[in-house]
């Protein structure tokens, strides 16, 4: 049995905040606070409520479960329980484990189902009923963009979870939304030099792309950077989301003259297409006198687990990996591993960091007012969170930090040890001008 769900121990739950339930039961209709508040859901009691909106059902349920674990850990650390995790290595020392702005952190949870409608309904519940001051989480770009624009309209801060599409902080960016995770543009910029070293400049690439916005974004970025270094794109074929069997898309690759296959798929699609591509013998093939290669631009450990030994030797990029040896990562892995018995995924990492960053910004601002928190996040420079020196760029609310290029490990030592970090691409190399991706932030909305 590979995945054991370890529940939180009971005492920690009681300590972690006995208030989520209280918040669930509080009637809000007659106590309409709007009139007395200076901003939406201003916390008036001894607690402040965060909303953790993660996929609990559907294909990303395991990733969502990992995100939730990370959030619960973050709440513990914020409230001064446990070993403090990355709070000890975080360069900002505003947070002291006394909660945020003197208020204990409580949380409510919800299920996005990885559907825009359900995610928005769940976020609305947290805002309207539970009085959440901030919404965070999610495991897909469509959901992130949908919830981000909801939070903008409603007037709360949205701290995006795992979302990799350029659009989240590109053409769909919003003032109230912030993203720590990297994007396809950075994946392309980080991967290209490594691919050049490993596979040379004379390559013919064949793209299989999930037929929706994230897939196109990914395909565009990889094409752009690989073509710049001399690769030729033979074809870019769109595959339906959730196709299951990709054989009809893989066979044309065999005789296309291409010697590299780029799989712009994520989640289950990636697991299936990679498994099947390897079965078709692509990796044993010689084309144009070169070894045929497969690339998966966006990796996650959970996907690597799903694809099993097929990931061996395959390059990709990732936001963070638990084998990193900096102080922040070590502290986080230790704290997470001791709590749950296995290392955190990159989704867990980005969610943990987002929760801490929000709390820190609120603490430094001395208020939970979205505009105040937002301003203290804008242009914020920090380190000690596992990705080296990081900047929350003011112009598009996107974090800039080192990007990891990883490779499927040949001889994994455990079921979690599937990827090895081949290169940490420095931040300077993945930066791009803020106006490149279009979009407009607009103004902060405080909801009143």
């Amino acid at each position: 049995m590979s995945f054991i769900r370890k529940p939180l121990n009971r005492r920690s739950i009681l300590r972690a905040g006995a208030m989520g339930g209280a918040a669930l039961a509080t009637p809000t209709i007659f106590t309409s606070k709007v009139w007395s508040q200076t901003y939406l859901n201003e916390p008036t009691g001894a607690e402040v409520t965060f909303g953790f909106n993660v996929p609990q059902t559907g294909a990303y349920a395991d990733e969502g479960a990992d995100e939730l674990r990370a959030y619960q850990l973050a709440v513990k650390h914020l409230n001064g329980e446990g070993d403090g995790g990355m709070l000890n290595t975080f360069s900002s020392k505003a947070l002291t484990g006394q909660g945020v702005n003197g208020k204990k952190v409580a949380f409510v949870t919800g299920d996005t189902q990885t559907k825009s409608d359900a995610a928005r309904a769940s976020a609305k519940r947290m805002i309207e009923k539970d009085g959440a001051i901030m919404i965070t989480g999610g495991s897909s770009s469509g959901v992130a963009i949908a919830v981000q624009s909801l939070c903008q309209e409603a007037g709360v801060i949205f701290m995006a979870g795992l979302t990799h599409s350029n659009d989240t902080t590109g053409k769909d960016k919003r003032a109230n939304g912030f993203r720590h995770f990297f994007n396809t543009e950075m994946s392309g910029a980080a991967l290209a030099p490594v691919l050049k070293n490993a596979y040379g400049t004379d390559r013919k690439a064949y793209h299989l792309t999930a037929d929706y916005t994230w897939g196109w974004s990914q395909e565009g970025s990889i094409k752009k950077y690989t073509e710049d270094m001399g690769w030729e794109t033979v074809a870019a074929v769109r595959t339906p989301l959730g196709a299951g069997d990709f054989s009809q898309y893989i066979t044309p690759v065999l005789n296309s003259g291409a010697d590299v296959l780029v799989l712009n798929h994520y989640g289950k699609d990636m697991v299936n297409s990679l498994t099947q591509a390897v079965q078709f013998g692509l990796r044993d093939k010689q084309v144009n006198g070169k070894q045929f290669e497969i690339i998966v631009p966006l990796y996650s450990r959970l996907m690597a687990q799903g694809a099993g030994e097929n990931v061996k030797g395959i390059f990709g990029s990732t936001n963070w990996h638990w084998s990193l040896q900096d102080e922040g990562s070590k502290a986080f892995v230790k704290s997470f591993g001791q709590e749950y018995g296995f290392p955190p995924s990159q989704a867990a990492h980005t969610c943990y960091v987002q929760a801490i960053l929000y709390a820190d910004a609120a603490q430094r601002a001395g208020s939970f007012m979205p505009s105040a928190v937002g301003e203290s996040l804008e242009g914020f420079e920090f380190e000690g969170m596992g990705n080296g020196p990081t900047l929350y760029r003011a112009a598009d609310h996107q974090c800039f930090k080192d990007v990891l290029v990883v490779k499927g490990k040949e001889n994994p030592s455990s079921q979690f040890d599937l990827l090895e970090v081949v290169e940490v691409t420095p931040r300077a190399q993945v930066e791009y001008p803020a106006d490149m991706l279009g979009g407009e932030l607009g103004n902060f909305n405080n909801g009143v």
Partner: protein
Amino acid sequence: MDVILLQLLNGLDKGGAYALIALGLTLIFGTLGVVNFAHGALFMLGAFCAVSFHEILNIEMVAIDPEKTTAWGTPLEIRTPYVETYLGDFGHWMLNYSVPVSILLAIPVMLLVGFVMERGLIKHFYNRPHADQILVTFGLAIVLQEIIKTVFGANPIPQTAPQTVRGAADIGAALGFDPGVIVYPYWRMVYLGFAAAVIGAVFAFLKFTTFGMVVRAGMADRDTVGLLGINIERRFTIVFAIAAVVAGLAGVMYTPILPPDYHMGMDFLVLSFVVVVVGGMGSLPGAVAAGFLLGILQSFASMNEVKAILPGIDQIIIYLVAVVILLVRPRGLLGRKGVMES
């Protein structure tokens, strides 16, 4: 030419999978008159028989190495499967062949599941409206799915084909093409052969045994068969169990192609319904023919040349074909009048 041949192979392979899943569904439709929304879940359960078998074989002896620690500070555990420790080479062979060998586990398990399901639940719904059947079997499908999710998690769990059939065969070379032009994975050919064998076996069973004859008579006219004094109820149970086994075996053998997760049944459910209906309600040959037809058309619609003319055609081809066939042939390819029409 080689491209066409390859897509034809793909289509046959897909068709085999579709036909295998649809076969059980149409058996249940045709004989029992029940709309079984839990059929996808049976497929999924079969796949998880393979997963469980693999996990059982992989029950590990855990030794703690006090010298080394994990990244989060607990002692490193060294795991070796018991099977390998105690059975040596045979244990290794078992691990290698876990997918095909798990058929031996899947058959009794699925028989039991089918038996319990029919006796415990479906039996009471023979005379209920189709709407009720849909609701109850859909509920059951969700429950089965959630149980699997609780035990195994939501992430796909990879299963590997045996070492000897893991790679791809160069069929092209055998047919006189240049080497490397037409390669096809061994396991997919195994799957196609397996599908053909199972379909053949079910047909032979219905065609050449007395039991099968009664069942076919029951499919044609249940009331008359009942009037002849034949206990059709008991046979229904067995038919249902057979359908469950067929779905389960389809699931077991599909695991190396598609790493199974708890939701895979739902993903196949709609598709298998379309296949059954296009084939014609209650017609076994129809379901098989429709499976292959849709599989092949889907493969060809996915070709770049076709997509260049009709963008997005590969996304809708199955449904488009279903609409066209149902409009041209009112009861699908080989359906009979009066079955499930009201």
